């Protein structure tokens, strides 16, 4: 009888344990109606650097705060949401010769694996490897990413409309435009080959 009791207790505690571990794995939605999530780009040019911003960010990332190496998901940026401060520049950038937003409406990053995880005060720092797709060309990239986990902060952000957690991702990395078929080897005297991308996005995981 004592053995049965012990077995029952052990299986119950195992169930609770696995449930609590399961509860740490959450899917974060990066669609942002507040217009805060953004990816900025910066590239050198002779008179002044060209910079701009994209706010059409969406995607789902699954993150386990107790096991950050298990992160997976996709972040997508709407190409047409790329904004520059000059209308003519923006028209050229989104036009057929450069990003061709009409034919390639999305820029995406699909996370495949995480390495070199370092714990921080409120999250993790890691190297994230995934497929970055720009203008229809997919290339594997490894980029540094900071995961900031903000438990129970969704309520504060949504003024009490929803309760849940927030996950903030930050990353800065450089790509070469020629690698993605964007005027390869051309116009290098006017626009640099290297483009710096800075990503700062927050995803929400509302309580079920």
């Amino acid at each position, binding site marked *: 009888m004592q053995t049965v009791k012990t077995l029952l207790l052990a299986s119950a505690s195992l169930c609770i344990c696995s449930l609590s571990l399961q509860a740490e794995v959450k899917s974060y939605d990066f669609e942002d109606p*507040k*217009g*805060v*999530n*953004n990816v*900025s780009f910066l590239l050198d040019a002779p*008179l*002044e650097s060209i910079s701009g*911003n994209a*706010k059409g960010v969406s995607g789902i990332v699954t993150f386990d705060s107790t096991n950050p190496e298990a992160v997976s998901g996709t972040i997508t940026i709407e190409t047409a949401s790329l*904004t520059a*401060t*000059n*209308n003519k*520049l923006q028209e050229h950038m989104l036009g057929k010769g450069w990003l061709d937003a009409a034919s390639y409406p999305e820029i995406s990053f699909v996370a495949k694996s995480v390495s070199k995880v370092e714990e921080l005060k409120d999250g993790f720092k890691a190297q994230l490897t995934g497929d970055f797709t720009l203008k229809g060309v997919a290339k594997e990239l490894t980029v540094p990413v900071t995961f*900031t986990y*903000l438990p129970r*902060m969704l309520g*504060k*952000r949504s003024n009490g409309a929803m309760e849940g957690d*927030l996950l*903030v991702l930050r990353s800065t990395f450089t790509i070469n435009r020629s690698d993605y078929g964007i005027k390869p080897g051309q116009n290098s005297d006017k626009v640099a080959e290297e483009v710096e991308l800075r990503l*700062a*996005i*927050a995803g929400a995981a509302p309580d079920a």
Partner: protein
Amino acid sequence: MSDPQRIRSSPFSLILRILALVLILAPTVFWIFTGGHVGFSKDRVEIPQVDPITQIEYVDYEERFVLGVEYLALAYGLGVTSFGLSFVFRQKAK
């Protein structure tokens, strides 16, 4: 010893000189007034913001025209050309 022939400006050359002055001064004043931006013109201006909860830095855009140096260069070029042309339309004094 003969007197050198005097050359005086025609009304048209005076107009060209005034035009040159306007072409140089007006854009300069407007450029200074809109912030003296040393770069190409902007159709919108970035306003940096910080989200208070996530601390994410982002920008909002204000639709406002900022004059750039390419328009200044064009105006100066036209101004200098206008000033130069004013010497073509001089009249000899009788």
